[in-house]
């Protein structure tokens, strides 16, 4: 860390007046678990400052909206999320940290977005929300936010094993015209630059994330699609089995890292 960077960090710290949990190089507090480093630790000082304080974090607009939707009655059954799950502060605590889970009924893993929509269709008899819609992002962010700070721990034993294997295979499979796998960047080159961007270890603990580039909150699957397009590969669909399996694998890759939802990234 050069003197300029230190000065910058000091200035940022003073003007924003935040108490950052981790600023010094090499000591990332809870953002680092063993060799695992959250994307937070690769983010610029200014970006971290936005995440450090909830009022500055624009993703909380989605959390607030999710909280409203939680109470909203929708569908033919005349129910809201709150009708069954009551107070999300209690009922949804820890949920975001253990998803995706195996669904006996479907015989495959489902992630948080799919679980919310399944609940809407089966129990509320409402329409499924569209992927990447403001509503689904808000609810997902709201639910996962209830687990903030809790370590990610996804159960991949039993029937989940084979899907985890598929996710792992996907992760290491080279694809696209650039012939790159997820691992080419996020395992082999984490911490190195790819053109103007710093590559992270690619953990999923901060999603749904507010990306400054997107100027809004986006899902993990949107990020997957973006990565796939960047290596000139045809992206899979939102909520596709391939991406859910990948999500399962990623959760174990970053197992133990705290849920940061909603994180802020560049």
């Amino acid at each position, binding site marked *: 860390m050069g003197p300029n960077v230190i000065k910058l960090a000091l200035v940022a710290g003073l003007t924003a007046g935040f108490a950052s949990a981790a600023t010094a190089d090499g000591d990332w507090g809870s953002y680092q678990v063993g060799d695992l480093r959250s994307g937070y630790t690769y983010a610029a000082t200014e970006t971290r400052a936005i995440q450090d304080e909830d009022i*500055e974090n624009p993703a909380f607009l989605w959390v607030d909206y999710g909280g409203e939707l939680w109470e909203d009655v929708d569908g033919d059954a005349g129910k809201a999320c709150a009708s069954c799950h009551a107070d999300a502060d209690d009922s949804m605590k820890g949920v975001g940290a253990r998803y995706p889970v195996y669904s006996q009924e479907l015989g495959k893993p489902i992630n948080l977005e799919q679980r919310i929509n399944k609940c809407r269709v089966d129990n509320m008899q409402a329409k499924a929300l569209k992927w990447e819609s403001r509503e689904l992002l808000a609810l997902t962010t709201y639910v996962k936010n209830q687990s903030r700070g809790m370590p990610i721990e996804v159960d991949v034993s039993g029937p989940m094993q084979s899907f985890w294997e598929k996710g792992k295979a996907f992760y290491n499979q080279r694809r696209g015209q650039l012939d790159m796998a997820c691992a080419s960047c996020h395992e082999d080159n984490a911490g190195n630059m790819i053109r103007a961007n710093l590559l992270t270890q690619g953990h999923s603990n901060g999603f749904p994330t507010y990306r400054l580039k997107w100027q809004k909150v986006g899902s993990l699957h949107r990020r997957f699609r973006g990565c796939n397009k960047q290596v000139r590969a045809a992206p899979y669909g939102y909520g596709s089995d391939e991406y859910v399996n990948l999500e399962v694998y990623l959760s174990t890759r970053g197992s133990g890292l705290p849920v940061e939802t909603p994180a802020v990234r560049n």
Partner: protein
Amino acid sequence: MAKSKPRIKVPKTATKGEIIEIKTLISHKMETGLRKDKKTGDKIPRRIINKFSCKLNGKEVFSADWHPAVSANPYMSFHMLANESGTLEFSWVDDDGSLYTKKTKLQVS
């Protein structure tokens, strides 16, 4: 566009003469007017919040004119001298004429 909702953070109490920091955030697309619709090629009309202001008991303490370079979901923070108790009223004026407001109480002792 979804309805714009503000978030604000103001200290509940302050001592007279204290300088307090006020933080605000509002959801808004802040469409610059420079982008084109990818399918039709038509310009997407500008729609931004062009004015932000904060009043204490009806008297303006801070205001700002915003321009198209301001990001989506704009965050604004400023400092003010706490001299009297009262109601702080924040307002954001949209290009289309909509007004988004939020009020909060400030107790100065």
